[in-house]
């Protein structure tokens, strides 16, 4: 049964919308497979605008992995901007994929990748535009299975009513396993309907099906327990972990968009996971253990990717790129290879130490040395012990001295505000640190032309971290604290003008906090916001704090809980957390001990170089951290002239 392209209807709308190119597809390395030759069909969505969603590595990887598989087809879809949404509703054009412009409602699986919770309203828009009932319970066998993935899916409870399944962890193998189960079920003539296929998925132990779990509440509003309501459904759902990255060198053929996107470069993931143990960092906790791609694997991916895309810049991605056991050889090898080819190399997410300056120098042999970025995260020595960011102010000053001495002229420092136990004094010390950086820079560079930019984000406690029990700082207190720091920096006659200060107000953080640590009752809030027109909550020009607060007041009325209860309330050891039945591999008692260590200002070193601290991940996965060195080097490539 062929599925018609909706492009003819869409095309008539495109002259009336902004940047129509984002809706037409046709990207280099995109794939359109024969609909009828596939028996499992996926529509993959990144629930934000095309310019943000297209470069997303997760979607790109799964798109390629699925399309390589015989009999499986995957296409992509992104959130449409409100101008097109309005026209689509007026002209009855459904949510479409950009590859073959097929209606999303015709696929078997609608997989949505949530890097952040702020995409939830966009999920509802896409479901509605697809003609898929918003609530999973209203769907029939004819509707796609709506699947959530990505880091936010580690607590999918706020969207539990709107998704059929959630998969946590690495998607590469998981999507193929899910495809096989759906394929078999369809081949058997769909026995037992939608319920049966969901049950088969749930029984694998690696697919969370919210409808098979009942949540019971205590009179005070806390969760009493979460219980499976079907036999064979596990009490806890485990995450997926790809153990050998060299076996999964994706994306092999990165998508090259015609439209301009937020990352105009190719990315190669050099390792997954992080064991630095920064207590605020959800990504570092839920992606354990560390798994490195080998130096030769990295070299191959860079080489093939550049040939397949024509990009001018390669980003070596990971959560802390300088921690790769052979990063020095990787950087030098790549810099040697591409010295003549005007290929830029970048190393995002690096830690504060002098070794990084050597790396940065290596990667900018010919280029301009403009700015270096470091993330001390906390302004005072004390607060850095709380968050386990093991860097001293001396380290930082030594590092920036080296940087300025090597010709770098600008340093950008990232911090957070609202960390557990934080006081005004901790935040005000950010200003002192910036002053010390400038002073050292002027001394080393023998010049007053030195800049330091301080960039501050509000801290949001996240599930599966030691701070999952912590109270979040209210928006008002965050704003007051940042106001004091601003006044201090502006008031500094000698150095203030060399310090740039960038921060966001505390309001978006409260909404993110509500969604991060929310339970199923938050679903009604999301729906209320969506129905009142909430869209694109990650965008300043669309986000409305007042809309969220008034919707929450309405939707939570009568539940006995409110926004403060979810955000600024500290949780106790005994409390059942909404995500406890989703197993990230971390031992909850270890997380609690680490939370207590945080309150005691006790640091915990990195287990790559120090003994194991029993976070629980390795024994559960029956593995160990996977790092080099391999001792191999990158060989020069044969130059074809």
């Amino acid at each position: 049964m062929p599925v018609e392209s909706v492009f003819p209807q869409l095309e008539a709308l495109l002259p009336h919308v902004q940047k129509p190119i984002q809706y037409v597809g046709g990207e280099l390395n995109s794939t359109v497979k024969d609909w009828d030759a596939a028996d499992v069909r996926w529509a993959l969505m990144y629930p934000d605008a095309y310019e943000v969603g297209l470069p997303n590595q997760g979607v790109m990887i799964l798109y390629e992995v699925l399309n390589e598989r015989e009999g499986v087809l995957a296409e992509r879809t992104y959130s449409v901007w409100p101008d097109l949404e309005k026209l689509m509703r007026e002209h009855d054009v459904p949510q479409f994929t950009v590859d073959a412009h097929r209606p999303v409602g015709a696929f078997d699986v609608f997989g949505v990748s949530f890097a952040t919770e702020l995409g939830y309203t966009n999920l509802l828009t896409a479901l509605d535009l697809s003609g898929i009932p918003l609530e999973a319970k209203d769907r029939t066998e004819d509707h796609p299975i709506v699947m959530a993935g990505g880091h936010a899916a580690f607590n999918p409870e706020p969207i539990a009513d709107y998704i059929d399944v959630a998969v946590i962890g690495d998607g590469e193998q998981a999507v193929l396993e899910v495809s096989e189960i759906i394929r078999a079920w369809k081949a058997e003539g769909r026995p037992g309907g939608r319920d049966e296929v969901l049950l088969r998925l749930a029984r694998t132990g690696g697919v969370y099906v919210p409808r098979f779990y009942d949540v019971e509440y205590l009179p005070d509003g806390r969760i009493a327990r979460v219980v499976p309501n079907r036999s064979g459904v596990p009490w806890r759902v485990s995450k997926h972990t790809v153990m050998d990255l060299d076996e999964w060198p994706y994306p092999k053929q990165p998508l090259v968009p015609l439209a301009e996107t937020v990352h105009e470069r190719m990315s190669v993931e050099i390792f997954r996971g992080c064991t630095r143990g920064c207590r605020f960092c959800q990504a570092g906790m839920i992606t354990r253990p560390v798994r490195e791609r080998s130096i030769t694997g990295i070299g191959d991916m860079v080489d093939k990717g550049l040939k397949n895309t024509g990009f001018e810049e390669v980003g070596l991605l990971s959560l802390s790129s300088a921690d790769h056991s052979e990063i020095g050889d990787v950087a030098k090898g790549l810099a040697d290879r591409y010295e003549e080819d005007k290929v830029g190399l970048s190393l995002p997410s690096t830690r504060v130490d002098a070794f990084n300056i050597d790396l940065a120098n290596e990667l900018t042999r010919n280029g301009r040395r403009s700015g270096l970025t470091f993330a001390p995260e906390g302004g005072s020595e004390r607060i850095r012990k709380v968050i386990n960011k093991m860097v001293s102010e001396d380290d930082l000053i030594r590092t920036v001295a080296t940087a300025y001495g090597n010709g770098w002229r600008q340093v950008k420092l990232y911090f957070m505000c609202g960390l557990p136990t934080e006081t005004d004094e901790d935040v005000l010390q950010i200003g002192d640190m910036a002053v010390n950086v400038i002073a050292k820079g002027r001394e080393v560079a023998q010049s007053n032309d030195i800049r330091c930019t301080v960039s501050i984000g509000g801290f949001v406690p996240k599930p599966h971290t030691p701070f999952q029990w912590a109270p979040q700082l209210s928006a008002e207190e965050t704003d007051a604290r940042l106001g004091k720091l601003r006044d201090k920096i502006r008031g500094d006659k000698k150095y203030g003008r060399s310090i740039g200060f960038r921060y966001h107000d505390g309001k978006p953080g409260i909404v993110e906090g509500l969604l991060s640590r929310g339970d199923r009752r938050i679903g009604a809030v999301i729906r209320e916001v969506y129905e009142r027109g909430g869209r694109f909550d990650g965008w300043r020009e669309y986000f409305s704090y007042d809309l969220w607060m008034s919707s929450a007041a309405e939707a939570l009325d009568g539940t006995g809980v409110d926004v403060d209860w979810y955000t600024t309330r500290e949780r106790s050891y005994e409390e059942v957390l909404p995500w406890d039945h989703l197993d990230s591999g971390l031992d909850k008692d270890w997380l609690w001990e680490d939370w207590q260590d945080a309150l005691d200002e006790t640091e915990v070193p990195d287990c790559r170089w120090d003994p194991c601290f029993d976070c629980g991940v390795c024994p559960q996965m029956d593995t160990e951290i996977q790092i080099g060195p391999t001792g191999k080097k990158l060989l020069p490539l044969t130059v074809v002239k």
Partner: protein
Amino acid sequence: MQRVRLRYTKRGRLRFTSHRDFQRAFERALRRAEVPMAYSAGFTPHPKVSYANAAPTGTGSEAEYLEIALVQRRDPEQLRALLDACMPDGLDVVDAVEAHGSDFSDRLEASEWELRLARVEPETARAAAEAFLAAETVEVERRTKKGIRTFDARAAVLALGVSPAPGAPPGRSPGPGAGTVASRQDGADRPGEGGCAILRLVVRHVTPAVRPDDVLSGLRATADLAPPVPAAVTRLAQGPLDEESGAVTDPFAPDRDAVPEPTGTGVSSAGTVPGPTA
């Protein structure tokens, strides 16, 4: 240094590519194809590419032009085929010549356009075109960065008429640039078949430029022609204008007619570098 001129298209859905989008895609194709580009001097060197008179976003084209500078000689046709293979389908590189003379943009005197008006009867369109041509001047407005601008859309229009039958190849003026248009592939994804008028328009390049959109505004103003579906507009050709026949001719003709072996024309190093890879 060798200069090569290329003709490229914006077909089907990729007509929504903006000029900036095209530039990025083309420069990536140059890298994939490992074209030995000449780079500009300076802190951030750029490959030397000059673009001429790009069609607006949303309009298709069979005749867009650019010129690139190379540090090693390449056979233009092999270079064209290689670049075409490296570009997305729809942005097709369809013709190439070695450049002679530096007056290329001056050669682009006029454009021939096709305007497909879905759900408009050809007779209605014919009457509107006649009313437009009969007018002395046709004042139209266009929104620019500086606000609404009013100008005459009539004087630059050299020809405007209805092409014979929908679906059939459009009535075309002769000229070497015209022959390759037959392979157009965008018919399949056009909206609303049924009554469809196809207008053929020849416009002289003047300042301010008169675009097909302005002529459509003029048709609305003079004859109340309001297509229910946005017009699908395609540039069929641009180049020197044959004043006698009114035809738009091939801008590459002077390059093709030039002496084939350019000895002593500034490419004196030709003998010392390897020839095109066979």
